[in-house]
Structure formats: structure tokens, C-alpha cells
């Protein structure tokens, strides 16, 4: 009985012999697809966070352009408007942007000569309260009641722009996910077909031993699910590594501004191996059943 005790029980996956060359290629392709999918997911997370941050900034600020009336000079009118606005409920800091400062800002581009004649608008920058921001109407009413002619820009055009960009990035990512998942399914389907052909004799022997199509399909299903899971794990790890390197080195400020990664984002990578395993399993099963049933 010593011989028997040395025997290992036949594992389901041993029924299909490994095919190293072919499988390394499949591992590689699925791995690459997973890296791409994971990076896309991380980028969506980060760009969404960036967009939300910008939107918050934009929403928190209102610019008021004051038009001086009668004898009042521009800067006096702006100062008066700033005083009025500061008294409105829900308004934080108010700053009248002085024309000299504005000129100084433009000077490098336009030069001294033109600058003197250039009408510089009188601007007041209004920082709104984070929790209970004042409405544009409240600001307008306050200005009107003090006979100040002004127009208020709540930056809604910019806001729309930012929101539009965020939406576009999200849509593009969904498109990328869709392409990657269908590509995964296609490559697994192709590999299943090849695997079935390469192991035709084994499949036939199993069938002659009374195996159902489902039993055979399950062998391929488990085989490819396992393979995809391993590749998915590796792909997610590589994507996480890429993100870690970007975040840790912090090489470029603007990069961090555009894609503010957070370590928590890595959680979104967790489902990746399971998702590709599922796609691979379903594809392998369907393809095997179709081919065995003579419908391929």
C-alpha cells in the first residue's frame, strides 16, 4: 500500500496538459490588457477628483466687475462695492483688484506704451462661504440697493467646462474598459479555440469515457479563469506600481495637480483579477460548448 499512498489524487486541471509557449503569450496579452484597464481606472479616479476640486474652487469664487458712475473713479467704486459685498451674508473674503496690480500683470505682454490707454476693468474678487455661499441674486440685490452698477460673473462658464471635461474623461474611460474587456474575451475565445484544437485527442478520449460537453467545457473554463486571474493580479500590481512611482517621486507638480492620485484609489484595482477571470471563464465555457456542439 506504500505505492498507493504516494499517488496523488488527480486534479481537475491536470486533465488538460499545460502548453507553455501558447499560454505565456496569453498570460502576457491578458496582463497587458489588465495594466491598461487598471491605469484607466486610476486615471478616472484621479481626474474625477481633480475636476471636483477645481469645480469647488470655481464655485467658491465670484468676480464682480464694477462700472464707475458719475464722478466716482473706478478704484473708488470698486472699493465701495467691496465694502458692500463684504457685508452680505455668506461672503468670506472680498478683495478689490487694484488697476495698478492688473496693469502689472498685463505689462509683460503689452508693454508700457499701450497700457496707459487701455481701459482696465475694476474687478472685485468675492470668496464665498464654503458652507452657506451667498447666491448671485443676494450679491446683485446688495449692489443695486447701494446704486452700484456692476455685473457678476459666477464662473458658470468655466464650471461647465470643467464638468464637461470630467464627463468626457469618464466616457472615454468607459469606452476603454469596453474595448479592453471585449479584447480580453476575444483573446480568450481565440485561445480556447486553439486549446481545443491542440487537445482534440484528449477531448475525444474524455468524451469517449462518457464526459459531457459541460464537463469538458468546465475544464477549459477553470483553466482559462485561473490563467486570467493570475494575469489580472499581475496587471493590477504593475498598474499600482506605476501609480506608486508617480505619486512617490512627485516629480512634477503639474502632474500631481492634474492627476491627484490617492492611495485609496488602489482599492479599485481589487476587482480587476476577478473581473477578467469571470470574462475568461464565461468566454471559454461558451466557446467550448459551441465548438463541441458543432455550432462553431
Amino acid at each position, binding site marked *: 500500500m506504500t505505492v498507493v499512498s504516494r*499517488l496523488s489524487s*488527480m486534479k481537475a486541471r*491536470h*486533465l488538460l496538459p499545460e502548453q507553455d509557449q501558447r499560454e505565456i503569450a496569453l498570460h502576457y496579452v491578458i496582463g497587458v490588457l489588465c495594466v491598461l484597464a487598471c491605469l484607466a481606472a486610476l486615471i478616472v479616479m484621479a481626474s474625477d477628483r481633480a475636476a471636483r476640486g477645481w469645480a469647488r474652487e470655481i464655485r467658491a469664487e465670484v468676480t464682480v466687475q464694477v462700472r464707475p458712475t458719475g464722478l466716482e473713479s473706478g478704484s473708488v467704486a470698486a472699493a465701495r462695492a467691496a465694502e458692500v459685498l463684504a457685508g452680505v451674508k455668506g461672503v468670506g473674503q472680498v478683495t478689490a483688484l487694484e488697476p495698478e496690480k492688473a496693469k502689472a500683470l498685463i505689462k509683460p505682454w503689452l508693454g508700457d506704451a499701450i497700457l496707459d490707454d487701455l481701459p482696465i476693468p475694476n474687478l472685485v474678487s468675492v470668496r464665498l462661504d464654503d458652507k452657506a455661499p451667498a447666491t448671485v441674486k443676494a450679491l446683485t440685490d446688495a449692489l443695486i440697493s447701494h446704486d452700484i452698477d456692476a455685473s457678476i460673473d459666477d464662473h458658470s462658464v468655466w464650471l461647465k467646462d470643467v464638468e464637461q471635461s470630467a464627463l468626457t474623461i469618464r466616457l472615454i474611460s468607459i469606452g476603454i474598459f469596453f474595448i479592453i474587456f471585449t479584447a480580453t474575451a476575444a483573446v480568450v475565445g481565440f485561445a480556447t479555440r486553439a486549446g481545443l484544437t491542440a487537445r482534440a485527442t484528449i477531448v475525444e478520449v474524455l468524451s469517449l469515457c462518457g464526459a459531457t460537453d459541460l464537463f469538458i467545457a468546465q475544464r477549459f473554463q477553470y483553466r482559462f479563469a485561473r490563467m486570467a486571474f493570475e494575469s489580472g493580479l499581475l496587471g493590477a500590481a504593475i498598474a499600482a506600481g506605476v501609480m506608486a512611482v508617480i505619486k512617490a517621486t512627485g516629480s512634477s507638480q503639474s502632474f500631481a495637480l492634474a492627476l491627484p492620485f490617492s492611495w485609496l484609489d488602489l482599492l479599485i484595482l481589487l476587482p480587476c483579477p476577478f473581473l477578467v477571470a469571470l470574462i475568461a471563464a464565461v468566454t471559454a465555457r461558451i466557446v467550448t460548448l459551441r465548438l463541441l*456542439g458543432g455550432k462553431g
Partner: protein
Amino acid sequence: MAQINEKKQLASSVTGFLPGDDAVVSFDNVSLGYGATSEADYILKSLSFQLPAGSFHFLTGPSGAGKTSLLKMIYLAQAPTSGRISLFGETVSSGDRAQVARLRSKLGIVFQEFRLLEHLNVFDNAALPLFVHGQSFRQYRDDVTELLTWVGLKNQLQAMPHVLSGGEKQRLAIARAVVTRPTLILADEPTGNIDYAMGLRIMRLFVELNRLGATVLIATHDESLVRASGMPVLELKDGHIVRRDLNTTVGGRL
């Protein structure tokens, strides 16, 4: 169990045929052409016969007579050109994959070319049909070991098929075919690669399984073995059954 089988064998020894629903294999005007257009060129021509439950037959005939083809039709690897085949009282319908799997699980087949799985060891090859039917290693370990001991492969349980001799492969193929205690055993030249003594031993295994209730059909062109066994013969020639012994000598001289 033994009594019932004896009864069946007695019945079949008297009549040669049992009522239709007791036939394990039933051919009704079955022809096989392999693409031949003219019926004169068919390999098998309008065969009608039944194998009663518990019967034992040698399928003989010269090389190329269609023995393998006939077995293939029985194990559903080859569809007939025309005619109707029934197994275990169930009419075979083409394209019904579930039926194929269901019927095949009652068969034990020894292929002329063995068809062992080269990547599995001797033990796993023999256990394959049990594994396919969902049995666990614990469940089949002892049975498989005992069977392999019986066919003389006790010391090669973990060997891979490619290191086995022709005779050893044949014995492994036979072990795999009978490991499920099938209702119908089909063997294609099962003694082709083994010496006379081992051939007789293997034949005795088939006869023993037949005594336990299995219906057995063995294709062979080994006339001396057939004669020595004294078992009934179904002989093919020119596409027809030219000899059909009734099951009168069950047990024969084996």
C-alpha cells in the same frame, strides 16, 4: 444478482435473441458507406442484429471487413449512412450530445490504438472514467489499484504511458475500459499486442465480467484465440453478417 444473470444467459442460450427491449445493442437495417455513393460500395450493408443483455460475442472477419467501423457505430463515434441503432432500448438520435454522453457512460471501450492520455500516469489513466463521472480519489483508489494489480501493472502505477511496452499499454487500456463495470464492453483487437498466455488471461477477464452481467463484443482476427475459447462468433464478410452463433456456449473453454 448472479441468479438473475444466469437466467438471462440461459434465456439467451436457448433463443439467441431476447425480446427487443432487453437487447443491449439493436441494429435495424444499418448501412455504412463512408461517402460511397453506390450501395454496392458500402462497407456494411443493411445489417440487422441484436446483442441480448449478458451475451458474449467475438466479432470476426478479415482485415478491412468493417469490424472497427461496426464498433464505432455502437460507441457513437460514427453515424450510420442509413438505418436505426438502439442502445439499451434507446434509439440513437444524431446530434444529441447529451444522449451520447449518457449512453457512453454505460460503455467500456478498448480501442485498437489504446488512446491513453500521454500526460497522465498509469493510475490516472485507468481512473479517468471514474473521475469523469465525478468520483473522488478516495472512492476509486482501492478499486483502481486492485484492477491494475490484476492486469499486472502493480509496479507501474506511477509510470507514464510512453515508457510502457505495447502489451502493457494494452492492459492499461483494458483496465480503463472495465474500471466502471460497464454494462456493455466493446473491445477492438484487445489481444493484438500481447502474448498468447496474457491474451487468454485478458479473455478470461472479459468472460468473468460477462458472468457478472456485462454484455461483451470483442473484435478480433485472431482465429486461434477464438477457436480456443469456444465462444460464439459474429462474423463479417463483404458487408454482411455471414455467421452468427447463438449464445449456446457461454463460458466456453476459458
